C-alpha cells in the first residue's frame, strides 16, 4: 500500500508549466517578448486542448494577443477551449473559424452575436454555457481554470510589474486564477516605463509581457449623448424617481446602460432636487463612471461610486473627485469588475435595466432569434440574492410587500424600464420569449433568459408602473403586466375590470396616480441637454471621445 502512495505524482501541472517555460527559454524567448515573436511564443507555451482565457469584456480588450492567437498555425494549436467574458472582436471569432479553438465559455457576445450564431449552426463551435460575469469568474477557480491567460495592462516596468490604470476590470480575477494554479500569464502592455505609478499585478505573477504595437482597445460603452434622450424616456424617468426611488428610499443602486437610465441620472439635479430628494436617494452606487452622472455628482447627490470599469474621457474628472470614486495613490481609478459585480449583487438595494422582450411571467431576455448576445452582468445585478443578511429601508419594505408583512428576509428591487414598443413597432411584451427557440438552436438545457420573472419586482413603461411584489397569484401578475403593456397585442388583451382593480390596490400606478404630470415631460427637465453641457458641468475635465463631439 505504502509503495502505491509514494508513486502518486502531485505536481503534474507544475511540471507541465516548467516544460512549456523551458521550451520558450530554449528558443531565446525571455520575459519581455518582442511583439514580432508573439505568435511564436503562443505556439510554444500553449498546447492543444488548453483552456485559454483571453481578457476582454465589453470595454477593454487584449486585442493584440487575440489577433496573434488567431494567426497561429492550426496544426500546432487546435481544439483550444476559450474562456472569456465577451466575444467582441472579429479575431475572437476567427480563432474558431480557423479551427484553432473549438469550445467557448463566455458571458456576452454583443458585437459578434450574428457570427457566433452562424458558427453554432455550422457546428464549428461548441458553447459550454452563457454565463453571468460572476459565474464565469467563479468557474475560473473551480472547473474552468485557465492553463494560459492573455491579458492586457496599461504599462509595465522592466521587471514586468503591471499597471492596469482606471480600466483594471477583469484583470485581477483572471490573473489570480491562472497564476496560482500553475498557469502561464502573458500580458500585452501599451507602454514600457521606468517605474509604474502603482503595481496592480506583481511581476512575480507574470510570465511574459509584450509591448503591443498599438494601445489596447477600449470601447466608450457608457457615453450617452443627452441630445438623444426622448420625452417618453423623461416621462418614465420621472415615474421611477417619484414612484419607486422616493417611496422605497433607494440609496444604494446600480443602473444598467442605456438612455432610459441616463434620463434618470440627468433628472436627479432638476426633478429629484425639486422633490427634495437630495441626500435621500441615489447616494451610493455600483456604476461605471457614466458621463451623464456628472451633473448629479456636481449637485451633491452622490457620495460614492465603485466601478466595473472606467469610461473613455472620464479619467481627469474621476481624478478630480477622489471622494466619490475609488482611486489609488497615483490618482487614477482602479476599477474591478468582480468586486463591483459582487457589490451590485449583494450591497445594492435596486437594479434597474432594460430589455428587448418580457413575457407574461415577467421573464426577460435580450437574446432574440439569430442573435446569441448573452447578458454580461445583468443577471447578477438583476437578481435577489438569497445569501444577503443585511437590511435597509428599501430591502425591508420590498420584503414586506412581497409577503403581506411578516418577513424572514427582504427583497432586492429589480426594475425593468421599457417602452412598450421598440423601433419598427416590435412589441417588448410577448407571449413567448425568443429564448425558447434559441434554446433549441443551441441545444442547451435552459432557455437564455436574462432576468427571471420571479426576481423582477417592478415593470415601468410609458403607461405606468406595475408592482409585481404586491401580486398574489400568477393571474394577477399577468394582468399587472398586461396593464402596463400599452397598445401592444399583450396590452390590448387585458381584462379591463381586473386592471381597474389592480390600479385601486396600487399594484398598477398611472403617472397621474403618483402626481407625475406627463405634459411636464420635456427636455427642459434634463440637467444637461448635450455632451457639450456635460463638459461644462465638469469644468472641462471630461473630454468626450471624438465621435461624441459635435461642436
Amino acid at each position: 500500500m505504502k509503495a502505491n502512495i509514494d508513486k502518486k505524482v502531485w505536481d503534474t501541472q507544475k511540471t507541465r508549466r516548467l516544460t512549456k517555460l523551458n521550451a520558450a527559454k530554449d528558443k531565446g524567448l525571455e520575459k519581455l517578448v518582442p511583439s514580432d515573436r508573439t505568435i511564436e511564443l503562443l505556439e510554444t507555451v500553449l498546447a492543444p486542448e488548453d483552456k485559454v482565457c483571453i481578457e476582454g469584456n465589453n470595454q477593454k480588450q487584449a486585442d493584440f494577443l487575440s489577433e496573434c492567437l488567431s494567426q497561429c498555425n492550426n496544426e500546432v494549436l487546435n481544439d483550444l477551449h476559450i474562456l472569456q467574458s465577451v466575444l467582441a472582436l472579429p479575431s475572437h471569432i476567427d480563432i474558431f473559424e480557423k479551427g484553432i479553438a473549438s469550445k467557448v465559455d463566455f458571458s456576452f457576445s454583443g458585437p459578434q452575436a450574428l457570427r457566433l450564431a452562424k458558427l453554432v449552426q455550422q457546428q464549428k463551435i461548441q458553447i459550454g454555457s452563457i454565463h453571468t460575469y460572476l459565474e464565469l469568474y467563479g468557474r475560473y477557480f473551480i472547473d474552468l481554470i485557465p492553463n494560459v491567460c492573455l491579458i492586457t495592462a496599461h504599462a509595465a516596468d522592466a521587471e514586468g510589474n503591471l499597471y492596469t490604470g482606471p480600466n483594471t476590470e477583469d484583470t485581477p480575477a483572471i490573473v489570480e486564477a491562472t497564476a496560482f494554479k500553475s498557469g502561464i500569464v502573458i500580458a500585452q502592455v501599451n507602454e514600457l516605463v521606468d517605474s509604474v505609478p502603482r503595481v496592480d499585478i506583481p511581476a512575480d505573477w507574470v510570465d511574459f509581457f509584450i509591448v503591443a504595437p498599438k494601445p489596447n482597445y477600449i470601447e466608450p460603452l457608457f457615453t450617452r449623448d443627452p441630445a438623444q434622450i426622448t420625452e417618453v424616456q423623461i416621462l418614465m424617468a420621472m415615474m421611477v424617481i417619484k414612484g419607486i426611488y422616493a417611496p422605497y428610499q433607494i440609496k444604494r443602486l446600480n443602473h444598467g446602460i442605456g438612455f432610459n437610465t441616463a434620463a434618470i441620472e440627468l433628472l436627479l439635479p432638476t426633478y429629484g432636487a425639486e422633490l427634495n430628494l437630495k441626500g435621500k436617494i441615489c447616494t451610493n452606487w455600483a456604476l461605471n463612471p457614466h458621463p451623464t452622472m456628472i451633473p448629479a455628482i456636481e449637485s451633491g447627490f452622490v457620495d460614492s461610486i465603485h466601478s466595473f470599469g472606467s469610461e473613455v474621457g472620464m479619467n481627469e474628472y474621476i481624478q478630480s473627485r477622489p471622494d466619490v470614486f475609488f482611486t489609488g495613490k497615483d490618482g487614477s481609478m482602479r476599477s474591478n469588475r468582480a468586486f463591483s459585480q459582487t457589490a451590485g449583487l449583494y450591497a445594492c438595494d435596486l437594479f434597474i435595466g432594460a430589455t428587448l422582450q418580457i413575457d407574461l411571467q415577467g421573464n426577460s431576455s435580450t437574446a432574440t432569434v439569430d442573435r446569441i448576445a448573452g447578458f454580461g452582468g445583468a443577471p447578477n445585478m438583476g437578481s435577489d440574492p438569497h445569501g444577503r443578511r443585511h437590511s435597509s429601508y428599501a430591502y425591508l419594505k420590498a420584503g414586506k410587500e412581497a409577503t403581506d408583512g411578516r418577513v424572514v428576509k427582504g427583497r432586492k428591487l429589480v426594475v425593468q424600464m421599457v417602452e412598450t414598443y421598440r423601433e419598427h413597432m416590435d412589441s417588448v411584451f410577448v407571449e413567448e420569449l425568443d429564448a425558447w427557440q434559441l434554446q433549441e438552436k443551441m441545444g442547451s438545457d435552459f432557455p437564455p433568459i436574462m432576468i427571471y420573472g420571479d426576481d423582477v419586482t417592478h415593470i415601468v413603461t410609458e403607461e405606468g408602473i406595475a408592482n409585481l411584489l404586491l401580486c398574489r397569484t400568477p393571474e394577477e401578475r399577468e394582468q399587472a403586466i398586461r396593464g402596463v403593456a400599452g397598445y401592444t397585442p399583450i396590452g390590448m388583451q387585458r381584462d379591463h375590470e381586473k386592471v381597474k382593480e389592480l390600479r385601486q390596490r396600487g399594484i398598477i400606478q398611472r403617472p397621474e396616480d403618483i402626481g407625475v404630470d406627463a405634459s411636464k415631460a420635456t427636455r427642459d427637465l434634463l440637467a444637461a441637454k448635450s455632451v457639450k453641457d456635460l463638459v461644462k458641468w465638469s469644468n472641462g475635465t471630461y473630454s468626450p471621445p471624438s465621435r461624441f463631439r459635435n461642436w
Partner: protein
Amino acid sequence: MNVLNFDFISQPIENIRKEVICGVVGSGNLEVLVTPLANSENSKFIIDTSVTGFDHIWEAVLQDFSSRYAVGGLEFKVNDMGATPAVVSLRLSQAINILEDESHG
C-alpha cells in the same frame, strides 16, 4: 402617405378659440395641429402617417385619449413619422396642456 380618419364622442372642452401646434416632424416623432370645431360633442382626428397596418392601434390610442380628456369640439391633425403609441399619447396630452395654459393665460 396613409390617411386615417376617426371620430369619437368626448366631453366638450371649454372656451377654446385658439389653434395649437405641438411636436416636430422627424423620424419616430409627430406633429399635432389642434383647431376648434363647430360641433362640441365630438373629437375628430385626421392622421397622415408614413406607416401602414396599425389602424387598430391608432383607434385604441385615440379612443382612450378622447375618453380620458375633455376634447369634444377639437380637431387634431397629426403628421406622423413613425411615432410609437407612447410618443403619440404624450404629444396629444402635451397639446392639451398647451391649450389649457393658453386659455387661462
